[in-house]
């Protein structure tokens, strides 16, 4: 398992409150995992730990055999781990195109002459436009994000994460605020353009969405993993349903 993401015994405490308690997870290259659980169960904290936004109180994180624990957010991003955000994060003062450019860090190489620079820039431009095309955002390339709808903003966040050509992508509620139709569309786009061979962790409340994309699912509750296994089995679990809908029996 040296080549995927390996997380062992990860804990995060704020003062006396545990956001995450001894979570362990192995992710093979190319594998897609769903991560579900009620609010405050530690899903976003987990993502923050993996991407270096926060540092664990205990435990370690490895990616492709290298330890990531304690590394800064930018060096983790440069190793090929990209993420999206539950509360939308875009650069509101940059145009859509520039937002994409901001994400292009892993593919820009230093160029020695102006012509080489120009060629690199044109290649970057083509790549960005084709990515924007996948998410039907190409028409909006010169707009500032203020002009975009919520769904388009979510797509921009996703497209920007892809611009760095990451090996592992972490999606934090990518379908939040989308209608069932939009959610289906997003699932298709993800299937076609994002997840082909790339490993991913998807946090989402919409279980159909998880079921369509992830073969394996983790359930978190109060910072602990209470279930882990093939998605369809996990979703039939009684405890899981009780926590989601307050069902009894």
């Amino acid at each position, binding site marked *: 398992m040296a080549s995927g993401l390996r997380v062992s015994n990860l804990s995060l405490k704020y003062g006396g409150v545990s956001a995450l308690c001894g979570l362990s997870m192995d992710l093979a290259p190319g594998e897609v995992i769903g991560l579900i659980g009620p609010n405050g169960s530690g899903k976003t904290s987990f993502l923050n730990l993996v991407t270096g936004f926060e540092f664990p109180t205990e435990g370690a994180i490895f990616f492709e055999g290298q330890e990531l624990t304690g590394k800064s957010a930018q060096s983790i991003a440069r190793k090929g781990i990209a993420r999206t955000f539950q509360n939308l994060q875009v650069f509101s003062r940059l145009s859509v195109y520039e937002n994409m450019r901001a994400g292009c860090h892993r593919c820009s190489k230093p160029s020695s002459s102006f012509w080489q620079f120009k060629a690199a820039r044109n290649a970057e431009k083509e790549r960005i436009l084709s990515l924007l095309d996948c998410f039907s955002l190409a028409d909006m390339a010169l707009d500032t994000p*203020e002009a*975009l709808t919520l769904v388009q903003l979510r797509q921009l966040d996703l497209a920007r994460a892809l611009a760095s050509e990451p090996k592992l992508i972490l999606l934090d509620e990518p379908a939040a605020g989308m209608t069932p139709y939009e959610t289906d569309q997003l699932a298709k786009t993800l299937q076609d353009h994002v997840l082909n061979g790339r490993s991913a962790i998807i946090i989402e*409340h919409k279980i159909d969405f998880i079921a369509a994309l992830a073969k394996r699912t983790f359930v978190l509750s*109060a910072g602990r993993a209470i279930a882990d296994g093939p998605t369809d089995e996990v979703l*039939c679990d009684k405890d899981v349903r009780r926590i989601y809908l307050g069902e009894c029996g």
Partner: protein
Amino acid sequence: MMLKLEGMSKHFGGVKAVDDVSLTMNEGEIFGLIGPNGSGKSTTINLITGLYAPTSGTVSLEGRDLTALAQHERTALGVARTFQNIRLFGNLSVAENLWVAQNGHKQRRQHFISRWFKAGGLQDTNIDELLRFSRLHSKKDSLASALSFGEMRRLEMARALASNPKVLLLDEPAAGASIEDGQLLGERIRAVRDRGVSILLIEHMMELVMGITDRMAVLNFGRKIAEGTPSDIQSNPDVRAAYLGTKNKNKEPADA
């Protein structure tokens, strides 16, 4: 009726965070408001307390229109809230925290001199009673920042009660609590209701919401998709779809 929202909408740019929501809460009721993340619950609370001005619609308390009032004026009329992330005055003592909330809105009514030189004593039967009710009496003089997590939650609710509210808005009071704590919390919320305060409860811990609310409403995409008693809601197919993403026609995994 106690609290009434009529046709409330709040749009942020192109995003309809709350879209044409109407709710009516009766006096002495515990009313639950649930919905998936991003469905507009917090925005609704912020519209009621006045942090946001609505794009359209009105909110009224006991028939009095609140829509144009500032936050502190609404507090004076009887709207109080707690926060999902606790917000206390960490460098004031427990008693001072309550004192601020009890008197914050009363200035104009009290005599100038007595108002200026009363805070030193902090002898007030209401506050004493509230401290006992919240089991914080022994901590009266310690700094709020020195309390334990559970005590902070209790103090936050006590502070909301100190302003003598008619309606108390609880924003995910069980966040970060275990299931056992949740049951205790349910009893406390009932005890608060028995003091004559109507309660609007936003919560994700379904057991808690289903267990103690009289009626509840469900939001999704900023719209109200259902309203009724907890058992109505539990059997409502739209609600199941919103929560589990399961389309009505599909086989329910739980039936397996």
